[in-house]
């Protein structure tokens, strides 16, 4: 029998162990291939230009990293599972070199098969993903997917590298081990030990304490030490999580167990006892999985919220569809007329409103109330509420002689400022204290004119105007021309006219719809990449937990046989196992969710809108995927227990 025959035989025999690894490999190939295809797809390249390309490249490296780690990890688990077989080969006289060759040949065949199937499947599903991506970025033309040789080549190269890596891993594994060690590898796993009372109690509580402190600090990061705070939060939560898995859980279990005084019962024997037994070995991987899944979730929820609220946020920054204008005796009125004439010609109905704005110097003088990040002086645009109403903007009217503060660019800093506070309006001759009663979200004028806007009622506006504006100060009075499109379906058309128009006049574009579209594109891509990576990551970690549980189930087979001989039914045993699985999947899940909730909360200043819904959706998907894996492992356990007797 040649080595090749042996390989084929052993693969056939091991197929039930392999198929999961095989699927995991195929899965990695498919996803990577899809990614590579999209990266090189002409439609994507054309639609996106430079930014998308970079984003794809960075994401591609991340994906590669995840897939590589996953494959190496899975391979390590499978090597351990097969240690007895490897030992047997050596026992019957194969040299270590021959065993390594056997394994590497097997691995290469398997990977090559997975690569072929993966690329084939990838070609089919990549179209689906392309459609999804295009839909997300708001492109609705005809999409043709072209076969990308570069993508195929790139995938093959990457996976050849991974094969080399896993082969090296096998070589090292075979070289390092002794025959005796190989036979016992499956039985390894530390013996249960009684924790040292004081030290464990201290570390257990320290773990919880560190996490709590990290959570607490994460809500108070916004000060001059922001960067250091972030590092501290990361360090404490990660260390805390590790201690939690390594010490706290075992310690808690030990307390419960001690209290039972030997009357642990079947459920406890199958859950608490085995979990305690394995916690030490699993602490590393559980910590990594928990922390990374928290990051993934935060990233996913964040990008989803950006995407989800694009319309709302763009609208809050660009309250007018189009705006022209300037200070002093600018000529924008004529320009606006050209534009509106064009709209008339195209039969687009609109609302045209001139808005008068006073530009004064403002100063925060209650310094302790204003965050130290803002400069003391600012340029204040005073707007009357009445004109804004006329322009069709739904606005809350401030009380007499008070103002509302609008400035989208600093809203995230200002929103926690206590109101009312006062600002001083000045020009060389006059000054006036104005009480700000509310800091409002977004702008009330379009950029680039916006700056800091103070909305006052009409009477107060006239009063300020009279006080500050005289003959020399006319350059401080500006007029802006708001154009609102009445029929939402014509917005795209109007935006196109506007873009042609600004091109002709050599001006920059600042319209709502154009901004909305490009933001959609950007956030659509972001959510696509985040979702894609998140999915890959989730499925990888889920599979790793699954593989680990499979190995555990096989190792516990003898215990199940004993239990069944003692007269416990499969159902009795499964009850205990389900408890354990709830724990194995539930704890990383719950702690990951908790971490991500606090991470999202801490980062929520970046998002203007409420992100509860998108975060909940991302978390629900996360829970669902974990649930599927948990059910799969329970199924595997059931099979093992049934076959045990």
């Amino acid at each position, binding site marked *: 029998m040649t080595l090749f025959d042996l390989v084929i035989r052993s693969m056939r025999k091991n197929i039930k162990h392999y198929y999961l690894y095989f699927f995991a490999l195929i899965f990695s190939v498919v996803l990577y291939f899809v990614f590579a295809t999209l990266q090189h797809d002409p439609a994507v390249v054309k639609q996106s230009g430079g930014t998308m390309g970079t984003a794809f490249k960075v994401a591609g490296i991340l994906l590669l990293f995840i897939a590589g780690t996953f494959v190496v990890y899975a391979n390590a688990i499978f090597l351990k599972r097969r240690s007895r077989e490897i030992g047997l080969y050596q026992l019957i006289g194969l040299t270590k070199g021959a065993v390594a060759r056997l394994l590497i040949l097997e691995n290469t065949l398997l990977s090559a098969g997975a690569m072929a199937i993966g690329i084939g499947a990838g070609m089919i599903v990549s179209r689906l993903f392309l459609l999804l991506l295009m839909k997300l970025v708001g492109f609705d033309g005809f999409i043709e997917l072209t076969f990308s040789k570069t993508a195929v080549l790139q995938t093959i190269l990457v996976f050849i590298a991974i094969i080399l890596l896993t082969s090296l891993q096998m070589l090292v594994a075979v070289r390092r081990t002794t025959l005796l060690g190989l036979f016992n590898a499956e039985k390894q796993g530390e013996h249960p030990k009684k924790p040292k009372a004081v030290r464990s109690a201290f570390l257990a509580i320290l773990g919880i304490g560190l996490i709590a402190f990290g959570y607490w600090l994460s809500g108070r990061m916004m000060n001059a030490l922001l960067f250091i705070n972030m590092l501290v939060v990361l360090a404490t939560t990660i260390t805390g999580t590790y201690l939690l898995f390594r010490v706290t859980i075992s310690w808690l279990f030990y307390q419960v167990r001690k209290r039972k005084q*030997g009357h642990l019962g079947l459920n406890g*024997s199958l859950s608490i*006892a085995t979990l305690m037994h394995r916690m030490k070995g699993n602490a590393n991987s559980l910590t990594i999985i928990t922390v990374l899944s928290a990051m993934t979730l935060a990233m996913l929820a964040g990008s989803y919220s950006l995407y989800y609220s694009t319309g709302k946020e763009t609208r809050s920054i660009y309250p007018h569809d189009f705006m022209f204008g300037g200070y002093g005796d600018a000529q924008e009125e004529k320009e606006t007329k050209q534009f509106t004439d064009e709209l008339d010609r195209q039969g687009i109905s609109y609302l045209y409103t001139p808005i008068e704005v006073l530009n004064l110097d403002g100063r925060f003088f209650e310094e302790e109330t204003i965050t130290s990040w803002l400069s003391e002086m600012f340029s204040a645009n005073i707007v009357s509420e009445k004109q804004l109403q006329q322009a069709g903007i739904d606005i809350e009217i401030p009380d007499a002689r008070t103002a509302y503060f609008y400035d989208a660019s600093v809203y995230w800093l200002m929103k926690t400022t206590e109101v009312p506070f006062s600002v001083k309006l000045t020009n060389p001759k006059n000054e006036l204290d104005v009480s700000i009663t509310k800091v409002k979200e977004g702008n009330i004028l379009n950029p680039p004119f916006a700056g800091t806007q103070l909305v006052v009622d009409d009477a107060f506006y006239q009063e300020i105007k009279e006080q500050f504006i005289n003959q020399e100060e006319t350059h401080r009075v500006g007029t802006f021309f708001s154009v609102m499109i009445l029929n939402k379906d014509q917005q795209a058309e109007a935006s196109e006219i506007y873009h042609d128009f600004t091109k002709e006049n050599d001006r920059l574009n600042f319209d709502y719809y154009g901004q909305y579209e490009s933001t959609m594109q950007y956030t659509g891509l972001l959510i696509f990449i985040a979702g894609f990576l998140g999915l890959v990551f989730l499925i990888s970690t889920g599979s790793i937990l699954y593989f680990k549980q499979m190995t555990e189930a096989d190792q516990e087979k*003898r*215990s199940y046989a004993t*239990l*069944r001989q*003692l*007269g416990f039914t499969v159902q*009795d045993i499964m009850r205990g196992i389900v408890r354990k699985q709830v724990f194995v999947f539930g704890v990383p899940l719950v702690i990951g969710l908790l971490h991500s909730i606090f991470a999202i909360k801490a980062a929520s200043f970046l998002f203007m809108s409420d992100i509860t819904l998108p975060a909940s959706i991302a978390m629900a998907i996360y829970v669902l995927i974990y649930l599927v894996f948990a059910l799969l492992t329970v199924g595997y356990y059931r099979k093992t227990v049934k076959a045990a007797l």
Partner: protein
Amino acid sequence: MEQNTVLHAQNVRKSFGARGNVQEVLRGIDLRVLEGEFVGIMGPSGAGKTTLLNVLATIDRTTEGSILIGDADISKMKDRELSAFRRDKLGFIFQDYNLLDTLTVKENILLPVSLGKMHKRVAEDHFKSIADILGIKELANKYPHEISGGQKQRTSAARALINKPSLVFADEPTGALDSKSASSLLGTLEDVNKQRGVTIMMVTHDPVASSYCSRVVFLKDGKIYSELYRGDKTRQAFFQEILKVQGVLGGDSVDTL
């Protein structure tokens, strides 16, 4: 004195293999075990010792024949009923102990009563008295990897006795023990059998082990070949008798495993 029958097997047959390649391992065994007996089952390899034990212990099913344990006909029971029956009425001692590594000695011993309706205090009393007899009281909080083979087997025996079974099955209980631990364990089993009246059925290949029994049944090729009663003989004399039968039975092909 009239003794109750604990186990009554009639014409028990067991075949393995699919059609065309059927191997009959048990070829019609009739066996009656009375309350308080300590029955040893001996025979060369392939005689069907372990198969018989599995079938009697409800772990495996017969192909033919009926088995009564107490009043219950176990050959007609469903799997779920069999499980409950095993848990409530039978005790098991295995060659390689089959203790759960993750549990302490005490937790292992209390495992069989964990699903039953036994009150915790009652279970605790049982545990104390049994641990006392088997001399493993001090080991209660140790894990299996911390104790010796003999101690492990005592733990296993204690686990078999905790639910006051009507019948204890022991499959080569001394197979993995050194001779000193083996004789000490057998002595204890004999004590348990005599003092507590526990019925024990033990499969063994070791004539020394079976000399502790009150009766030894010899199997050959799936049938009962002969039986020996110890009666009032000394253990030494009984041992010599067993050796004689074994010599006739298997020649030099005595089971070595």
